[in-house]
């Protein structure tokens, strides 16, 4: 490549970054203004969707960037949630510290798990992640003295969080700006990680682990670290869920929770950063709309199968294809 072309490419990447950042700020602000437009019930749904979207994104990012398909991510979501519950009940540390600690606990736990299971590629990883998820679920139902067993935890938050009464986060009007900003920050984080050297290296390992090893790169630790990052974000989502519902029970850790988030991520599109959230919005709306019927699992599973067969990239891919089709038509019309 000659220097001019290289310079042009540099400029275009720079302008992409600026464009994406500008879009990001606009969307963030537009989202924060949402309570002006919609009612409390819709806002409640939005909070749910943002929490689920964050969780789904953590799973989608992991599989897209590293090829590691986790069927047990609810473990990290739940470990953080229970950490918040236990720390707020047992100590009087400020909530913000508690949440930071909970995310950290999730990350440390994931590090230990990752050391054992990140060695295994593909199929084995999927099976092992599911088993670990079930193990954590079994532990939460059995350890009555710590987790209150299947009854779950009603948490009484005290003090303030980000300038507001901590208990008031049950109200979606209070929690929405925080939850929404968290989701947007996570998206930005993943976007930058994907563009970083670390992100590129993860993709290279995913594509051909042997080649990377022979080229002198470490392949094991980056995978473990990617797993830890993903679990920490899952933990953050778990904290959001506990904060906005002030309740946690082993149901939050069950296979269904992991599976739901994974399905939502696939529906929206694993390969994109916005996709999982779109999937989450669709799911939450669908669930609200079908509240009377018990068929949503059927619809979710069916939709999942159709998407995997027909459009493995999920809705994000469908939209992308449509956009490029329209663009091509337009260009053709201009010529």
């Amino acid at each position, binding site marked *: 490549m000659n220097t001019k072309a290289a310079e042009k490419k540099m400029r275009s990447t720079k302008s992409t970054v600026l464009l994406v950042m500008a879009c990001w700020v606009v969307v963030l602000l537009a989202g924060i203004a949402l309570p002006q437009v919609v009612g409390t019930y819709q806002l409640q749904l939005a909070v749910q969707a943002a929490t689920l979207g964050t969780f789904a994104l953590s799973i989608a990012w992991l599989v897209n960037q590293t090829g590691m*398909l986790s069927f047990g991510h609810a473990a990290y979501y739940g470990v953080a949630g229970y950490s918040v519950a236990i720390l707020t009940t047992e100590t009087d540390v400020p909530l913000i510290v508690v949440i930071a600690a909970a995310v950290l606990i999730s990350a440390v736990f994931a590090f230990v798990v990752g050391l054992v299971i990140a*060695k295994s590629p593909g199929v084995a990883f999927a099976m092992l992640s599911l088993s670990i998820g079930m*193990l954590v679920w*079994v532990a939460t139902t059995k350890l009555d003295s710590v987790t209150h067993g299947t009854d779950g935890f009603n948490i009484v938050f005290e003090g303030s969080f980000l300038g507001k009464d901590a208990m008031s986060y049950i109200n979606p009007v209070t929690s929405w700006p925080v939850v929404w900003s968290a989701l947007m920050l996570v998206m930005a984080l993943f976007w930058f990680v994907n563009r970083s050297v670390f992100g590129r290296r993860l993709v290279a390992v995913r594509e051909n682990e042997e080649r990377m090893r022979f080229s002198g790169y470490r392949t094991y630790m980056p995978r473990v670290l990617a797993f830890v990052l993903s679990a920490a974000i899952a933990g953050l989502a778990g904290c959001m869920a506990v904060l906005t519902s002030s309740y946690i029970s082993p149901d939050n850790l069950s296979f269904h929770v992991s599976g739901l988030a994974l399905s939502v991520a696939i529906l929206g599109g694993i390969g994109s950063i916005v996709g999982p959230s779109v999937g989450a919005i669709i799911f939450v709306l669908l669930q609200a709309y079908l509240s009377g019927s018990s068929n949503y699992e059927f619809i979710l*599973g069916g939709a999942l199968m159709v998407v995997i067969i027909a459009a493995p990239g999920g809705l994000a891919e469908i939209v992308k294809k449509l956009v490029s089709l329209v663009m091509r038509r337009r260009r053709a019309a201009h010529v």
Partner: protein
Amino acid sequence: MVIVLNGMAFGVLLLVLSTGLALIFGLRGVINFAHGAIYMVAAYIGLTISTEANYWVALVGVPVIFGLIGLVADRWGLRYLTEREPMEIMLLTFGLTFVLSNVVTKFWGTQPRTLEPPSVLDGTIEIFGVAYPTYRYFLIAVGLLIAAGLIVWLRRSKTGLQVRAVSIDRSAAGVVGVNVDRVSATVVAMGLAMAGLAGVLAGPYLSLSPNMGVEILVLTFIVVVVGGLGSISGPMAAALILGMLNAVTAVHLPDISAYVPYALMLGILLFRPKGIAGTRSL
């Protein structure tokens, strides 16, 4: 004695299920996440058939039905998806899990149900002064027969040889004249038939609930990992070991018995990552 029999009974059930899973994995490189859900549906269909007709019809009929479904699913479904990533097929079976569990709650409700064994197998048999439910003897016998039959089939018959060949190298087997598609269809049908059989066998032994699929799925995964991916006899041995451990700890260490399968899995992963008889490393 009772502990050993209990261990055998549960181990044999795991054996029938996990062998089906391992067979399909060996051939298609895909783990069927819906295996547990299929087993659950089979148990419920078995329940309906045995209340409408009788248990023996269910015991024979359900595996046949599921075998046929497997044939059809392979011929008109999986065959077109061979070029897809194994991951996508796994997710496909995962979606199926949701659909099936919804079907079960829709038609049979969420209440736990029990399947009554036929009167011949109801009651107990006394051996060496220990009374033990007849049905569990039956379960152990059927399971071990199936296992033995399968091993003989894989080792001695021509189709068995072809199955092993395709498992080792799909394209090479095709080159030397094995009809890979037909072998695949046979194996998927066998795998599903075994899940069906396991469901009907489990009916009178465990209670039927919409969670039974997920619960046993995790155990079969552990069995397959411990036994070794890519092997059939490994998971068979692992299933019996796990069943035994389960029975022993349930009596002697009830507090930790729920964790034992996981501990076994982690131990294997740390000290022998290929599993007992695995051919490919994890």
